[in-house]
């Protein structure tokens, strides 16, 4: 199982880096690169013989198998993930100059890559979920990488919470889907998709997971926040790979569910909204990373909309193209940020002349983003338009056309903002020497964009094999409607740019136009929910956790007694035994017990209360005698006498009168709770005695006490029949004795230290 092992290799390497850290020294970078290289080799060799499954049994009882699918789709996605990962690791090796930070970052990167590699290859719903959550955790730690910044910490929490909302819904969806399909194998489910309400609900829940992960409206807001991550992480996680996880999931499920109405409508609509919203938002950003992030949101929306329309081949082509150019652009921004200390387009000026190589790399990626020939971005977008037209998806075509024009415009904004000279911009023309290891990875990706743009044939056959969807990837499509759409988009974008550019620092008609979308309501919903949650938590906890022992006791007693009593009263299947008494002595004793008990609660002096309590005990002992249990009565009398004596000792050290009444519960509430308790126990006793069970256990004790060696049944029970209980109670006494000893010792020492001081 080479692919499985190559995925496992990431985690092994990540653990090694985590444990050894900076001690790896020069071995760190080769070690971090190794799993990516290994996986690319595995992919290259597997390509000759795809369509295979590698299975590791994990929780078969719960229907969970770690199944890795080796097919064309896996190979395409794995190649993208591993190639870009390799380049970004190489880049980060130079990007981070601080050794501990570099080691920490690379460890997390490799860990994340393992999750991503597993995610694109998993064929089991739960295996997919496992890797999905690995990427969530890694993303959380990477966004919070600069953990001394409060903004980074907040963005990390926001990202993990938003994606977890979807993740948990998705888990629910996966369980439902696997129950209704009878299997968790994605290929089996897609081959015979389950139908019915359960499956539909499952699907909606799963879509929720995909949308949150791939930053679709209304969950898109976490992605710009995630730009708090170090730039190499943003390049990899938040543009090229992780945010594609939702797209991958949709691609996997599309063959089985594309015909479901709920799927087609939801997926397409959400995609279209996201596509437009992201592009509009990108137009008002000043931070290059944020501009790219909103662009990513828009592109992800495009892919989602394509999948919703059933055009999986085109979606995959756009995915590959986007991964290449967006990673390039992020890496370029990383270099600019590192060299100039800013990413703000209002400050940057004139880099084009200072670093032609960097500008060339960026330009290639930018024209790919804008969909201008002869690069991959154009080829894939053309293919998408072509497929949309062939399918007659006119709404999709219109929205995608507008969004493409906006894409051209924000690409221009990116280019002019980052590279051209600007009036009022701070001149940062002297960029200095850029290290080769920093410029090489984006340069290679840019070259790839050109190569695949000019020679798209290999990619075309791979995409067709992977998605079983028709898609035409050609550099020159001929004079067809799709070309006209592209041309119109480019022209429209250029026009928007001409009107809006040079004015982006001022409040212009453009900024006023997009003002309503300035504060994305979704972001407010998030922060509002968190505030509400915190407030609710405080309020609820304030109520239930008020720290008053009388209140706790009252709640406990009331709950237990009322639940039980209501059960009994509702059922009403036991008739109380209303026989009032067996004779006068009982009545007298009961009256004494009740009277002394009431008197105890009313006593003002502690000593009086102790004595009255003793009197209650004596009356109870009397009742034992009345029922013919003199041995029990004797025990009771001894205990009561002893207790009263003990009280007398202890009370000599306390004030004579009780203190003020506890204020936490009013007298009437306490009276009510006590009344309920008394009424309940009376009722319970009446009901319990109405049943006359087989008394063979009691009879056995009576008959076997003598043979066992004693006349007093109670004694024989304690020392023989149920001697283990007695042993247990002795242990209780021992524990109590130790506790008292410890308390006395503590007290003595405290007194000593007080005297000393």
């Amino acid at each position, binding site marked *: 199982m080479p692919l499985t092992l190559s995925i496992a290799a990431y985690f092994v390497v990540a653990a090694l880096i985590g444990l050894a850290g900076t001690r790896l020294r020069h071995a760190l970078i080769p070690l971090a690169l190794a799993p990516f290289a290994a996986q690319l080799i595995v992919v290259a060799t597997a390509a000759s013989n795809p369509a295979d499954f590698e299975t590791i049994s994990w929780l078969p009882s719960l229907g969970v198998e770690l199944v890795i699918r080796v097919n064309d789709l896996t190979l395409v996605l794995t190649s993208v993930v591993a190639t870009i990962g390799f380049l970004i690791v190489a880049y980060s090796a130079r990007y981070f100059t601080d050794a501990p930070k570099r080691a920490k970052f690379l460890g997390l990167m490799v860990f994340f890559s393992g999750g991503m590699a597993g995610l694109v290859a998993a064929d089991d719903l739960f295996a997919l979920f496992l890797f999905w959550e690995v990427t969530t955790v890694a993303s959380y730690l990477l966004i919070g990488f600069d953990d001394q910044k409060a903004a980074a910490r907040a963005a990390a929490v926001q990202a993990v919470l938003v994606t977890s909302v979807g993740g948990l819904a998705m888990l629910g969806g996966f369980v439902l889907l696997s129950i209704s399909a009878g299997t968790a194998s994605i290929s089996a489910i897609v081959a015979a998709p389950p139908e019915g309400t359960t499956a539909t609900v499952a699907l909606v829940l799963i879509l929720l997971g995909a949308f949150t992960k791939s930053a679709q409206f209304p969950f898109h807001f976490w992605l710009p926040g995630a730009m708090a991550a170090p730039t190499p992480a943003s390049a990899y996680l938040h543009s090229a790979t992780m945010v594609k996880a939702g797209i991958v999931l949709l691609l996997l499920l599309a063959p089985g569910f594309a015909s479901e109405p709920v799927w087609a409508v939801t997926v397409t609509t959400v995609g279209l909204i996201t596509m437009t919203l992201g592009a509009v938002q990108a137009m008002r950003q000043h931070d290059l990373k944020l501009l790219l992030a909103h662009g990513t949101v828009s592109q992800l929306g495009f892919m989602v909309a394509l999948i919703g329309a059933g055009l999986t081949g085109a979606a995959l082509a756009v995915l590959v193209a986007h991964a290449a150019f967006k990673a390039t652009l992020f890496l370029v921004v990383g270099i600019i940020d590192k060299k100039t200390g800013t990413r703000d387009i209002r400050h940057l000026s004139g880099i084009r002349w200072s670093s032609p190589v960097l500008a060339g790399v960026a330009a290639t990626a930018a024209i790919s983003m804008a969909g201008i020939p002869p690069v991959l971005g154009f080829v894939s977008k053309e293919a998408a338009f072509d497929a949309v037209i062939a399918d007659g998806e006119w709404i999709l075509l219109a929205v995608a056309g507008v969004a493409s024009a906006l894409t051209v415009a924000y690409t221009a904004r990116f280019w002019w903002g980052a590279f051209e000279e600007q009036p009022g911009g701070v001149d940062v023309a002297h960029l200095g020497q850029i290290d080769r290891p920093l410029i090489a990875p984006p340069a290679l990706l840019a070259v790839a964009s050109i190569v695949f743009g000019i020679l798209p044939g290999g990619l075309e056959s791979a995409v067709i094999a992977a998605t079983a969807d028709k898609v035409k990837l050609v550099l020159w499509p001929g004079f067809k409607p799709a070309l006209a759409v592209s041309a119109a988009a480019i022209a429209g974008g250029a026009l928007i740019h001409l009107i809006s550019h040079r004015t982006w620092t001022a409040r212009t008609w453009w900024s006023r136009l997009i003002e309503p979308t300035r504060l994305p309501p979704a972001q407010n919903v998030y922060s509002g929910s968190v505030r509400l949650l915190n407030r609710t938590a405080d309020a609820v906890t304030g109520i239930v956790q008020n720290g008053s022992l009388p209140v706790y006791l009252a709640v406990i*007693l009331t709950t237990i007694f009322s639940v039980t009593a209501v059960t009994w009263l509702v059922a009403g299947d036991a008739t109380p035994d209303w026989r009032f008494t067996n004779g006068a002595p009982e009545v007298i004793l009961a009256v004494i017990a009740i009277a002394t008990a009431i008197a105890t609660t009313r006593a003002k002096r502690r000593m009086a209360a102790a004595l009255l309590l003793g009197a209650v005990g004596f009356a109870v002992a009397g009742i034992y005698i009345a029922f013919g249990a003199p041995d029990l009565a004797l025990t009771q009398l001894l205990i009561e006498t002893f207790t009263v004596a003990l009280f007398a000792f202890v009370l000599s050290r306390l004030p004579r009168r009780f203190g003020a009444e506890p204020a936490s519960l009013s007298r009437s509430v306490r009276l009510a709770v006590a009344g309920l308790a008394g009424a309940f126990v009376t009722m319970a006793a009446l009901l319990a005695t109405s049943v006359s069970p087989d008394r063979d256990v009691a009879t056995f004790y009576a008959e076997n006490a003598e043979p066992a060696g004693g006349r007093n049944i109670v004694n024989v029970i304690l020392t023989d029949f149920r001697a283990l209980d007695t042993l247990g109670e002795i242990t209780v006494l021992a524990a109590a004795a130790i506790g008292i000893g410890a308390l006395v010792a503590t007290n003595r020492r405290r007194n000593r230290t007080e005297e000393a001081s």
Partner: protein
Amino acid sequence: MTTVATLALAIPLFGAAFSLIALRNLLAQRIVSIAASVGLVAVSGYLLFAVDADGAVAVAVGGWEAPFGIALVADRLAVLLLFTAAVALLAVLVYAVSQRSTDEELRGFHSVYQMLATGVALSLLTGDLFTLFVAFEIMLTASYVLLTYRAGGEQTRATISYVVIGLVASALLLTTIALIYAVAGTVNIADLTTRLDAVPAGLRSGLGWMLFLVFGIKAAIFPLFFWLPDSYPVAATPVTALFAGLLTKIGVYAIVRTQTLLFPSDGPVTFMLVIAGLTMVVGVLGAIAQKDIKRILSFHIVSQIGYMIMGLGFFTVAGVAAAIVFIVHQIIVKASLFLVGGLVETSEGTGAIDEVNGVAKRSPLIAALFLLAAFSLAGFPPLSGFVGKLALVQAGFLAERWVVVGVSLFASLLTLFSMSKIWSGVFWGEPAEAPKERPARGMTAATAALVLVTLIVALAGEPLVAYAERAASDLLEPGVYRTLVIGAAP
């Protein structure tokens, strides 16, 4: 095998006795105590496999046959939890000894610790309702003592709360058992399985709820848990870890044992599911409102109890099995988290999340241990919490109880939220100038070992789930239990 089952009780009891005899000799005490804990792990480990292979065993203590004498019953559920508890007891003991709490050790800590172990073992092994009461008494009295080692000032108040609630719960338990004896004429659980059939259904189910709620005080379910977050955080770390890992779970065990065997239901029990949902949500909301590691964790104990009650409430083999898996996971993970919290307190001097910063930078190992345990608690795969959560969600959907499953998923989101609060607050950021005190190696090692166990629980998820399913089907077939202890029903 009956001898071995008895040994599981005798070892901690003798451990308690001998360490009391050696009260003045620190080294001897430690040797005895650790030996007893290792012995319990070994014996319960043997039982874990032997019971599964050769079937459960019942011991008639003192030679008096059930239902007249007391029966000890080592079935799958009992030995699985006994083994888990033994592992937690050993790890926490090593942590406590490494913490150099010499003072407490010379005042009987080891003896009381082993008494608590005895109480735990007896609770799990007894087949007798009254002996279960006695076992709770041992456990609770030991816990009162452990809590009072730190008595004084703020702690005294919390301790008094804990003790008073404990005593009231004991009195209520005794009352309930007396009522059950009055209507059934026996306290032997196996015997009760058939004798309760003669009791009118309403009367029986009222008694069932009473027993459920009384054990629920100890298990800390809503609305009976309020005492827990007030008292647990004030104790010393090993004590809190032990309470968090074991005591509430023994309460849940008692609920599972009695509800399945004595008050069986044909389908999901809505009342239990409502209680479960409220416990999860109110508990986790409490956690969100806190600003101290141990207080946050204490509320999580409560919240997670809800998951177990939910599994039981489905009243299916899958549901009860999921609850059992969840108990095992919680015993280990909860103890681990409190030990990690203790490491932070030792090294930083406080566990207040507003005051501590940058622990990840200063002590990456502590951070890694916390991260693993916290994500396990939040149910992230492939950690043990995920196994439990997945099992519960599956069982819930199979039982078609959508709402409570939805609530449980929502609660796990909130769990993640409050865990990320600890992580952001305590582990991220710049550390203060100097650590207060480096935690001793043994403390870190014990914590790491326990976290490692949670990983093993996850990797060995399959055997655990399968074992729990066998245990659950034993429970839902009360005839099995009765036949084992008394013989086939007449």
